[in-house]
């Protein structure tokens, strides 16, 4: 169950919207941020609040990149595999990151800290190769800078920007 305070806040927002359905993404983001991902139960909770069927929400949840229907780590790394970053992939950032963390695309590290997801251009092509960690952009990446970033994330508190 969502905490009462969060439920109230979302319900107020929904009541104020001309049409609740407009808020489908916002509500799913909020629920996802709370639970870490959108489980079946979480999806049902969101659907009830919005007055939509779970299937109607599922249609959306499975469509978008930044809604996670499976458990993810505390940090979700969206690595850009757009064409500009690809150009700088000598010694591929993606390979390095995956090897370093011992996962392949779409997987979460055993300690539940990092999930690595390939993502289309994240809009920081002037800093290629680039990635987003919980919505915060990093680039241009090198194996050394990746080491530093991962270390920092492991040891320091980091504010969550988008989802989880």
């Amino acid at each position, binding site marked *: 169950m969502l905490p009462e305070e969060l439920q109230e806040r979302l319900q107020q927002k929904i009541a104020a919207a001309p*049409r609740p*359905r*407009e*808020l*489908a*993404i*916002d509500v*799913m*983001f909020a629920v996802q941020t709370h639970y870490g991902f959108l489980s079946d139960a979480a999806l049902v909770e969101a659907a009830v609040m919005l007055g*939509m069927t779970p299937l109607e929400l599922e*249609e*959306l949840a499975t*469509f*978008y*990149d*930044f*809604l996670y229907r499976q458990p993810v780590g505390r940090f979700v790394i*969206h690595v850009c*595999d*757009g*064409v*500009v970053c*690809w*150009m700088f*992939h*000598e010694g*591929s950032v*993606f*390979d390095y990151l*995956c*090897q370093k963390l*011992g*996962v*392949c*695309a779409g997987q979460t590290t055993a300690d539940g800290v990092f999930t690595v997801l*390939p*993502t*289309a*251009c*994240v*809009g*920081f*092509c*002037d*800093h*290629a190769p680039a990635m*987003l960690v919980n*919505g915060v*952009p990093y680039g241009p990446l090198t194996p050394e800078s990746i080491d530093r970033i991962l270390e920092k994330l492991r040891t320091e508190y980091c504010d969550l*920007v*988008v*989802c989880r």
Partner: protein
Amino acid sequence: MNSLPEPILLRNRREDRPATLDEYRASGGYEALAQAIKQYTPRQICEMVKDSALRGRGGAAFPAGLKWLGVKEDAPHPRYIVCNTDEMEPGTFKDRVLVDADPHQAIEGSILAGYAIQAQRGIIFIRPSYEQGAQLLERELEVARQAGFLGKNILGRDFSFELDVHRSAGRYICGEATAQVNAIMGHRPHPMKGVHMALQGLWGLPTLVNNVETLACVPHIVRNGPEWFRGLARTETGSGTKLYAVSGKVNRPGVYELPIGTTLREIIEGHAGGMLSGGEFKACLPGGASTRYLPRQFYDLEMDYDTLKAVGHRLGTGAIIVYDQHTCFVGATLNLMEFFARESCGWCTPCREGLPYIRDLLWRIENGEGKEEFIPMLRQMAGHLAKSYCAFAPGAAEPVISLLTYFTDEVREHISQKGCPFKNVQKPRPHLWYPPEE
């Protein structure tokens, strides 16, 4: 050549932070809104935009004024405007820079569009990667509201307008105007064919969708006049400046605001600091992933809509992706097709089935399994993409078509050598890494 001409849209850009309301106002910000509301009828604003010859900066280059005038005076209410800040095409990042530099400019442009078509509500649609931009806009929208530029009876007149941010959860097709309308309404964002947005957009009511760069030009047009705006261009039929987003193998990737019609050579060698050392210009994609490769022979071409059209190309978004001589174009096109195949919304068959097919042919060619007959097959499949439901698939076909136009020799070399001739120069790796088998 290195000094930038006076920027217009990026006049308030600073290294460290976005411009504040005061800074925006000090540079003339919100004067246009006051003028518009006090001196001009909504129709006059539409006419001004039409006279300025402003064309849509979101890729399709549709004349903005014509689109605005398409919302008839007796059209039903409420009406809506959408400020398209989705920008998910690989290589594009100008809208991010534009919003981050001067959020109030995007806001004023949106309000002016709202006034021009007498809309009640505006929505800024923004992608999740730009969450920082979304939060900035939300904060500054509140500032604008406090200052009386938004809300009821703006500047004491009888025009009321609300503007808010709609977050997307990230999918390229949401940038397409009709898909965006579905996305905002909370429906699965597939495009809609044959829908006339000026009549039936959001919730079946008149809706205007414009790119944020298009809207950002409007305050300047209202303040300085359409003729001034046309005069900014280097070409006869062009107008205004353009945010050229340069990326790839150049020394200074970034967004450069230049008169529209600046030549490719000037943009790359002057503003973007030339090619990275050891690199030579081989070709670029002039306007994001869904345009055609523009090879060396067009280095001195003026980068404008009509000049590119005259040589069979499109300026698209003006996101210039620069490739050097070490780039394998089969590999680059394969990367683009991976993107398009993954992002296809799946609604129609030519796109959903055709793109993976093209990707597989390119994959085989790149990996030494290519055959001569793949070339006509690629051509045919790229041709089929034109039969799709929306403009996504024809856009995806552009790199393939131009690969076959300009770089057939390179494709053939892959086939005859049974592999990528660039393998030792630069290694285009597969995207997904799998752990070595135990």
